[in-house]
């Protein structure tokens, strides 16, 4: 487990202009809280549920984005993660916050599979799904530190990016929808 020094954490929060409430990330034992300093999203190409190829940074730019790792054949935690994103999607302002489910299984998660995944949870328009190229899955894992042992292979944390496509916050595992929506609103209010 990586523990950031308290000074670094506080400087990161202050730098983002985020409230003290944001430091109170949800329960859990994973490293979570503000990412200090914010990190620019890596240059990764995604194939989105609508069949369009788009760079990750471009997809993230302009909106606060909540990102989760998943794969559509996952039967353990992913159905819960899907329900969680459904709840988050209903709580956030669609004008300023978008959601992105990122697959770690590109060979199976074609645009059609991703569309079916979104349909299972009645995803609104501001919730999209995409898969990176197979050879770039490891880079994605490393960037968000999203690898986990066990059958699902990925964490159940939610990764938050500001409007400039900078990684600014990671939640605890399987956070509450209300907590994620609150932090998204604070990132949006910070005009990042």
């Amino acid at each position, binding site marked *: 487990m990586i523990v950031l020094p308290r000074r670094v954490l506080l400087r990161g929060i202050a730098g983002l202009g985020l409230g003290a409430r944001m430091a109170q990330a949800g329960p859990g034992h994973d490293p979570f809280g503000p990412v200090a300093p914010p990190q620019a999203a890596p240059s990764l190409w995604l194939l989105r549920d609508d069949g369009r190829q788009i760079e990750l940074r471009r997809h993230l730019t302009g909106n606060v984005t909540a990102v989760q790792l998943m794969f559509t054949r*996952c039967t*353990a935690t992913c159905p819960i993660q899907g329900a*969680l994103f459904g709840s988050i999607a209903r709580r956030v302002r669609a004008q300023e916050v978008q959601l992105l489910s990122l697959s770690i*299984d590109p*060979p199976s998660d074609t645009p059609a599979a991703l569309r079916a995944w979104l349909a299972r949870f009645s995803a609104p328009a501001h919730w999209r799904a995409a898969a990176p190229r197979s050879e770039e*899955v490891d880079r994605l894992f490393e960037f968000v530190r999203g690898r986990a042992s066990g059958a*699902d*292979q990925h964490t159940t944390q939610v990764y938050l990016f500001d409007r400039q496509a900078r990684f600014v916050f990671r939640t605890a595992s399987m956070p509450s929808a209300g907590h994620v929506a609150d932090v998204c609103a604070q990132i949006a209010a910070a005009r990042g």
Partner: protein
Amino acid sequence: MLLVAAAWGAMACSESRSQAMGRKLFEGQLPLVARLAGDDMLLPPEASRCANCHLLAAAGGPADASGTATFGPPLTAVGLAQPQRRRGGPRSRYSVETFCTVLRSGVDPAHILVERAMPRYQIDNEGCQALWRHLTGLR
């Protein structure tokens, strides 16, 4: 004698029905009402099935994940009823009462909170006893 046999048969039959109910709850043929801890969101039935995390995944996942492990601990009679260390706590074993407690509140028999990925179930005594009987093979 016939009366005793009939009564025993009726009881066995009744308990078998309970086991069948437990199997259906475990596999999701009967829906379970559940939420994430600290969240008011009701999980859809497909997300709250016990078998999702406590059976070897039939479909499997990327790379070598297919069929190699369960996400949650496998629920067997031995694993539940034999004393063992769970989540770094002291040795403990489940009874039907503590099994119902962990389903409802997430607190295990050693009084340790299980992780948030385990839903908290709104399940009555009949339901959790049926699950217990199914998992432990008790008639």
